[in-house]
């Protein structure tokens, strides 16, 4: 579930991406495994194409020594691969076929359009970072041990660069000024505090009861409440959810000193009602400049 994954700590977010409109947009940084997957897909696509062409030439051409075929193949591979990356990323605004399949996209770090220069640079650097040393290793049989070690070390170092920066940028991304991001998915879940039903209005909360929690708890509760809306839960999951529901209701009513004991049948209603009241309260406070991030808002920062 991507929504749940989006909140876990493992996901890296770009918060300071600023388009010309001046409203920052949050993007998810693409994971390295996904980028590797996209890369492998692209290499397979271009590689197969190159192999097909080489086979055609080898069948048609009279002189075909092994060395020539390998040399020609690596040359063709380059001649197909490089334009493939540049053209697809230019035409599809930062997506190759592999990136498309894995829902990745290249964006310009300055918040403007992706320029041809950026696309060209990041792919040219990719050649220098990875493909050229590997091609040399494969093609050059006369290479001595030192050169081989150097080529391998070069590839390893350049591949390790993304591990050492927050945005997972390759060397080429750094030079071109680009990020690789997850294509954002937008799905609008219903507003839980939309129209209040008469049953929900049965529960009332006093201001001091709403002063306890902050935005984090509110939104955690919202995430939980949204789970019964989308997707059909399996019977086991449904039972588990009911258990959690009971636990949450017990915890909340204890914490806020809710006088009435709530019947199990009304648990869901109670939580929705509490959510609406809590949100109204927090938003009201926020309008007056009192932002409450979580339940520790009242205590000192060192606490």
């Amino acid at each position, binding site marked *: 579930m991507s929504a749940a994954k*989006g909140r876990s700590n493992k996901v890296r977010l770009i918060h300071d991406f600023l*388009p010309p*409109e*001046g*409203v920052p*947009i*949050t*993007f998810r940084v693409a994971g390295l495994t996904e980028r590797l997957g996209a890369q492998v897909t692209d290499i397979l696509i271009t590689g197969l194409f190159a192999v097909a062409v080489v086979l055609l030439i080898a069948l048609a*051409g009279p*002189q075909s020594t092994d060395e*020539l075929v390998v*040399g*020609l193949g*690596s*040359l063709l591979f380059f001649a197909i691969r490089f334009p493939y990356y540049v*053209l697809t990323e*230019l*035409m599809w*605004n930062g997506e190759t076929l592999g990136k498309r399949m894995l829902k990745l*996209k290249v*964006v310009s770090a300055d918040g*403007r*359009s*992706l*320029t*041809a*220069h950026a696309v*060209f*640079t990041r792919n*040219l650097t990719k050649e*220098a970072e990875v493909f*050229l040393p590997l091609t*040399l290793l494969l093609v050059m049989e*006369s290479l001595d041990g030192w050169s081989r070690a150097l080529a391998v070390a070069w590839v390893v170092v350049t591949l390790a660069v993304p591990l050492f920066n927050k945005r997972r940028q390759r060397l080429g991304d*750094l*030079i*071109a*000024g680009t990020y690789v991001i997850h*294509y*954002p*998915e*937008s*799905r*609008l*879940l219903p*507003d*839980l*505090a*939309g*129209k*209040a039903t008469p049953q929900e209005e049965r529960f009332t909360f006093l201001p001091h009861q709403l002063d306890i929690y902050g*935005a984090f708890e509110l*939104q955690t509760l*919202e*995430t939980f409440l*949204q789970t019964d809306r989308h997707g059909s839960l399996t019977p086991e999951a449904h039972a588990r959810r009911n258990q959690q529901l009971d636990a949450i209701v017990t915890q909340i009513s204890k914490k806020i000193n809710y006088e009435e004991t709530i019947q199990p049948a009304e648990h869901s209603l109670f939580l929705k009602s509490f959510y609406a009241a809590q*949100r109204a309260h*927090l*938003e009201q406070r*926020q309008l007056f400049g009192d932002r409450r991030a979580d339940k520790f808002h009242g205590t000192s920062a060192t606490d």
Partner: protein
Amino acid sequence: MDTAITLRSARFRAEREADWTRLDQLVRVVERGGAHQLSYQQAKDLSSLYRQAANSLSVARETSLDAAMLDYLDALVARAYLAVYAPQERLGGLVHRFLTQGAPAAMRRSAPFIGLGFLAMFLGALAGYLLFFEDPAWYNVFLPADLAGGRGPEASTDYLRGVIYDDDAADGGLAAFASLLFSHNTRIAIFVFGLGIFACAPAFLLTFYNGLIFGAFYALHVDRGLGLDLAGWLSIHGVTELSAICIAAGGGLQLGAAVLFPGTTTRADALRHAGRDAVKLAIVAAIMLFAAAILEGFGRQLVQDRSARLIIGWGIGALWLAWFVFGGRQRNVSR
């Protein structure tokens, strides 16, 4: 206004949801088939709805705690941004702009670095030339055996002349072209550009070394009285090819200089800035290497006359120079 909704942020959402849905639909059309799928009115709507949604997002971040809406709006604005700010330029336009404006202007801006590249090559050639006359044994130190192809100090003058003026039929055609394109000089050009990023030194040294090879090679032929013949043999493609290496070195040196002397910006920013011209230099070098490979693969076999070789080689060199010096002058080009 819906009286049943009491919460301010819920009302905010209810009032705008229809617009967001419409924006969502338009963005989906662009995602599927590109911006040209939209009608004029739709394109107008897309841009204004995008700006409204960005505005809503900005307000919502301050006033609402509805995570469902915040997440949705964030993602929707991101998608709309990607749809609105997709590059709209055609490929032909890009190529045309590069050839007529971008490349020559970048070459002129980078003239000092390219000059350094040529200087490294020249100094190397001078050193190689002088060292060969000091002691011909240096020749084998500079030239790798596979590159020399039997053309060492021990080879006979006739053999050397034969290589210069003989067209080897088996070597012609596509195969030769392919191998030449991936030949020594192309590799050198790629390395001098790529390695320049390591504080200039590798780029300078490699160019210097390439000059050494060239100088020693030339000295060998001068020694046998074949200097001018070799000049013709090399000129036909070498003017283009060696210039390409010097230009690639210029690009590499530019990157290295950005790393060494970033000035008031950070190194990453300086590198990015230098990259704008350096990459153009690399493309120019690639184009020149490609041209050189064609000249080497075909021109050298077809043209056997010494002066014709010299004229073609230096004529083409003059054409390159004219492109760099006069290209894109009419307008004040901004990067």
